[in-house]
């Protein structure tokens, strides 16, 4: 707290127990009104079809009391901490320790990721969860190209995930094509849809872009639901072939991998294989993105995010630049979708709702736009954190929503708040995100 004591405290900030009490009382009163009917009265369709209700004044009182107590605590913490900013929350030595750890964090995470199937070989649940996290890491990295680098807002990213998943599912179940043939096809098809979406949104800015991408995502989902003859409608597609290890199936049969290697079959083999498959796909996404950032196309994406008018004045074709960003992001989404389909063996439109798009976007923004490491950390935090609440079933999304709000208030610029330059002469120094523009999307 020594760093903080030097700061002159704002004189206008009132304090004292009377002030805290007054604030807490107001909060409690607001809570009372807000929850009076929604919590105090519970409605349900009665046995005869009519509506019945009963009261829950106990719950209401408890909740209002909690708000009262909670706001006293929050207010006390606020006064004790003083004005909240980075310096006062995290002291300087800790900050430098964090930045030192940050340099080793990425390699350490990578090594750890490779070792996960070894360490947790017998824990199916953890393997499953790791595969899920890696899928979102890949989706986050894919969307990062569009949102983080090119600064184009995309609220319908899940559409490309869906296109990839259905491409693989339909090609595999109808034509018997293998995963390895379908994977690039799924990517290409998704990229094609990315360009298709790109065209109408070329001239749009900001929130117009947001609604069109959102509408696009919904259109794809609604078409999947209603085009029953092709997609199976709400019932989805089942019996999607599992991936093979380049032609060798991971099954207990005689031609399976286990039999050929002469080891005992275990269903975990397939999980481990899936784990390394998604890890490889995610790392490929990462490698390509890092590579692209150092190429003219990647610099043009970032320049587009910074200032579109200046880009045009420098002879950059902003149309193709935007379209390539959409296509690249969509392609990665398509790959991830194909993986999702082969992992699940069953897909339905329920997996491709707006909530998924919002989740992936939250991962990108929370990661710190444009930061590869940040996106990976955010995916780990969000998906892992979400899993922690698995037991609370119906409260899960509620907690998730609250967490999203709090995280944004805590770190509006994301976990990693700086941008690494793509080229340097003498010093490779990070750029504070306060200077980095957020794009017009």
């Amino acid at each position: 707290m020594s760093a903080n004591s030097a700061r002159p405290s704002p004189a206008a900030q009132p304090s004292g127990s009377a002030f805290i009490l007054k604030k807490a009382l107001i909060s409690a009163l607001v809570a009372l009104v807000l929850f009076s009917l929604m919590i105090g009265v519970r409605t349900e369709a009665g046995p005869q079809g009519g509506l019945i209700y009963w009261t829950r004044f106990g719950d209401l009182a408890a909740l209002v009391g909690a708000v009262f107590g909670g706001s006293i605590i929050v207010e006390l913490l606020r006064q004790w901490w003083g004005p909240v900013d980075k310096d006062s929350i995290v002291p300087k030595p800790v900050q430098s320790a964090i930045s030192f750890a940050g340099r080793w964090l990425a390699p350490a995470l990578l090594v750890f990721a490779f070792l996960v199937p070894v360490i947790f070989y017998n824990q199916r649940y953890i393997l499953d969860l790791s595969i899920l996290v890696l899928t979102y890491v890949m989706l986050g990295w894919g969307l990062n190209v569009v949102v983080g680098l090119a600064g184009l807002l995309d609220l319908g990213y899940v559409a490309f995930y869906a296109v990839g998943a259905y491409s693989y599912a339909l090609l595999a179940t109808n034509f018997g094509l293998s995963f390895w043939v379908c994977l690039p096809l799924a990517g290409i098809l998704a990229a094609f849809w990315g360009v298709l979406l790109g065209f109408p949104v070329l001239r749009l800015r900001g929130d117009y872009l947001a609604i069109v991408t959102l509408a696009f995502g919904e259109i794809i989902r609604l078409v999947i639901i209603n085009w029953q003859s092709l997609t199976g409608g709400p019932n989805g597609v089942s019996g999607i072939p599992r991936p093979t290890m380049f032609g060798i199936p991971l099954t207990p049969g005689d031609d399976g991998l286990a039999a050929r290697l002469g080891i005992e079959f275990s269903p975990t083999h397939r999980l481990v294989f899936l784990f390394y498959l998604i890890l490889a796909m995610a790392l490929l996404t990462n490698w390509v993105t890092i590579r692209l950032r150092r190429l003219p196309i990647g610099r043009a994406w970032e320049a587009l995010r910074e200032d579109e008018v200046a880009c045009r004045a420098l002879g950059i074709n902003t149309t193709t630049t935007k379209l390539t960003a959409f296509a690249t992001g969509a392609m990665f989404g398509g790959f991830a979708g194909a993986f999702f389909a082969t992992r699940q063996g069953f897909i339905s439109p329920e997996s491709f709702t707006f909530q998924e798009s919002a989740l992936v976007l939250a991962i990108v923004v929370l990661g710190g736009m444009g930061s590869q490491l940040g996106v990976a950390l955010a995916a780990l935090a969000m998906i892992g954190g979400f899993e922690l609440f698995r037991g609370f079933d119906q409260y899960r999304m509620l907690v998730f929503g609250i967490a999203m709000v709090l995280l944004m208030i805590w770190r509006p610029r994301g976990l990693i708040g700086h941008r690494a330059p793509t080229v340097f002469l003498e010093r490779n120094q990070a750029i504070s995100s306060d200077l980095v523009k957020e794009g017009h999307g």
Partner: protein
Amino acid sequence: MDYFAQQLINGLVLGSIYGLIAIGYTMVYGIVGMINFAHGDIFMIGGFIALISFLVLVSLGLTAIPLILLIVLLVSMAITALYGWTIERIAYRPLRHSFRLAPMLSAIGMSFVLTNFSQVSQGARVKPVPPIITGGYTLHEGAQGFAVQLSNIQIMVVLATIVVLALFTWLVSRTRLGRDMRACEQDQTMAALLGVDVDRTISMTFVIGAALAAVAGMMYLLYYGLVDFFMGFVAGIKAFTAAVLGGIGSLPGAMLGGLAIGLIETFWSAYFSVEYKDVAAFSILIVVLIFMPTGLLGRPEVEKV
């Protein structure tokens, strides 16, 4: 022709509801420049509060339907408005001068919170209510036995919309608050320098937007006779589409966009297929935006070089 007239009536009624919600989106966008993703859920909360207060009033022994409806309307508007105020206070105000995507994600988070709050507190099942306002008029009896119907509830929805819009227009154009709102829309810093309480004006914007959404929620409840925790999402997206279609930031545009979306949806369902009505609405939005990138009545964005 009769069939067409009937669809026109249905479309206008639906469009009125969308328009009322769309105004909330457009108002907030005009002043704060953010998409209030939680607004659709505010509409849903409005519907729920109307439902619960109606139930409570009836069980208390009140029988005069007009009186009940009036009380329900006022209670629903007041409590929902407080929801709007609280959300702005908790989730948006700390992010007001921040990075633009942060408030948007905060709003998406808030939308999840509201949806799941009402699911947890009121259960996931659809809540039906018996028809409260019944009866209507047969406008025209067709040759094939098809009659054009105009029900009392339809009349009420349209009338309520007109009254609320008139009040709202008066508020924005004639009152001090309206002037402050228009000033904040132009330039918040300058407005603050000239003595406009910007924080209060923004709070009031959310309060008014939420109150309008509550009216829409109650109309929806009366018209369709049911509410559920998920209805805010679809209605919200449609109303947002309407606001953008009309030109976000423009109040007449929001109403026009609402009517347009309502009509598109109704006519598409009537003449083509019900399944693809939302696809049609979204596709038309995209087509309109290709040719008019700032919507039907939006101010064209002039880029200063």
